């Protein structure tokens, strides 16, 4: 039996209900096989709900979707107006739609495609493709923290890292998010990488990413801002920061002080409107910009400490 045939199909129950009563209507159409409900249009192509109303959706496994079950559900919803004393709940119309079986846990893989930046190939954990000669593979499972690694600033950093990282480097990654850039540095030859981020979800995600790319032992992850760095966390060969431009500007001096003389940096997260001011902040902090790349409205900078 194939995997898809083992999965159940579902029936969607859709109701357009007054905004104030969405929660109650949702509870009425919940089923024993699915206690959850969703609000809002069922698909991106669904017409917007009329003013004062929104869609409520619930689901039932299709083996339970019988004529008797539908009739009972319709009776329950029809009784709401008299039970609550709210005439606006009269005449709610239920619409039913069958959904084919689907493995929703893996549906993101349909819209997420592997991509390459120079020598780095960013792949899904389940991709069986073997790296081509000279190619370095990076396995990424998108999560809450930073998504898919496809953001323009991430791609700019991945490109610049390939020209910056040398074998044996010690690297610092400020605002590490998924840990993707720190892990990429390790895959490119860095001896160690220290990543930190104020988002508590970052550390477990980054640790998982490092483990799935075989470099957990070479990485250290901390939760917090710049205050988590100690006196010993200095003389790095390279510093990466893909963060908001105002934070880059405010911490340019500190980022520079964490580098050894002539150490390299790769910074991004800078929108067009802030590019000039951010570059000026780097140069005031003794950071010599040697390369500025642009992708869409985003800028990235690479260079060395004076």
């Amino acid at each position, binding site marked *: 039996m194939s995997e898809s045939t083992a999965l*159940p199909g*579902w029936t*969607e129950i859709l109701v357009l209900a007054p*905004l*104030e*009563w*969405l*929660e*109650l209507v*949702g*509870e*009425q159409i919940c089923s024993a096989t*699915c*206690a*959850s*409900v*969703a*609000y*809002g249009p*069922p*698909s*991106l192509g669904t017409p917007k709900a009329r003013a004062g109303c929104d869609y409520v*959706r*619930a*689901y039932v496994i299709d083996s339970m979707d019988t004529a008797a079950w539908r009739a009972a559900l319709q009776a329950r919803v029809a*009784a*709401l107006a008299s*039970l*609550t*004393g*709210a005439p606006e709940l009269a005449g709610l119309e239920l619409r039913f739609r069958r*959904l084919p079986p*689907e493995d*929703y*846990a893996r*549906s*993101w893989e349909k*819209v*997420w495609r592997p991509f390459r930046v120079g020598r780095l190939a960013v792949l899904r954990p389940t991709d069986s493709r073997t790296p081509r000669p000279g190619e370095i593979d990076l396995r990424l*499972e*998108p*999560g*809450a*923290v*930073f*998504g*898919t690694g*496809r*953001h323009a*600033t991430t791609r700019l950093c991945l490109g610049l890292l390939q020209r910056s990282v040398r074998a044996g480097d010690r690297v610092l990654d400020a605002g590490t998010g998924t840990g993707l850039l720190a892990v990429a540095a390790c895959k490119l030859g860095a001896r160690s990488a220290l990543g930190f981020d104020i988002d508590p*979800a970052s550390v477990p995600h980054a640790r998982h990413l490092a483990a799935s790319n075989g470099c957990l032992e070479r990485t250290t992850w901390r939760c917090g801002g710049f205050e988590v760095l100690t006196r010993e966390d200095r003389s790095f060969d390279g510093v990466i920061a*893909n*963060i*908001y*431009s105002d934070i880059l500007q405010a911490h340019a001096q500190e980022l520079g002080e964490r580098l050894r003389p002539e150490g390299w940096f790769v910074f*991004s*997260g*800078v*929108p067009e409107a802030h590019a000039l001011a951010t570059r000026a902040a780097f140069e005031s902090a003794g950071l010599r910009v040697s390369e500025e790349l642009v992708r869409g409205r*985003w800028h990235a900078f690479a260079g060395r400490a004076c």
Partner: protein
Amino acid sequence: MAKEVSAKVKLQCPGGQATPAPPVGPALGSHGVNIAAFVKEFNDRTKNDKGLIIPVEITIYKDRSFTFILKSPPASVLLIKAAGIEKGAGLVGTEVAGTVTKAQVMEIAKLKLKDLNARDLDAACRIVEGTARAAGIKVKD
């Protein structure tokens, strides 16, 4: 850097027991979100309220990352708790499952006001009272 919001999705799921099945799957899958990652994080954050229905609002960004905030429990859950009963009436309209006071209704309405789409506290009280009647819970003065 500034993340661009792609969509906001509202769901209600049982605490600690969400699964990638509908409605989570279709609601988030159409935006390319890693559903298993959402389910894991939601269940982790709600593990102390296992089985309790918890509304959640998910913000999805253009890079398909997401954040979510948990909202106040549904009015019916709060009413059942206030009435000190296990569940609402099986035969609504003929059976009284429990009783709550107007003051308790007011407290629940205050708690739910910002999540109920109600224009003011009176409107929120009306919704909470209606929800009580629909669950077979009597409201007394």
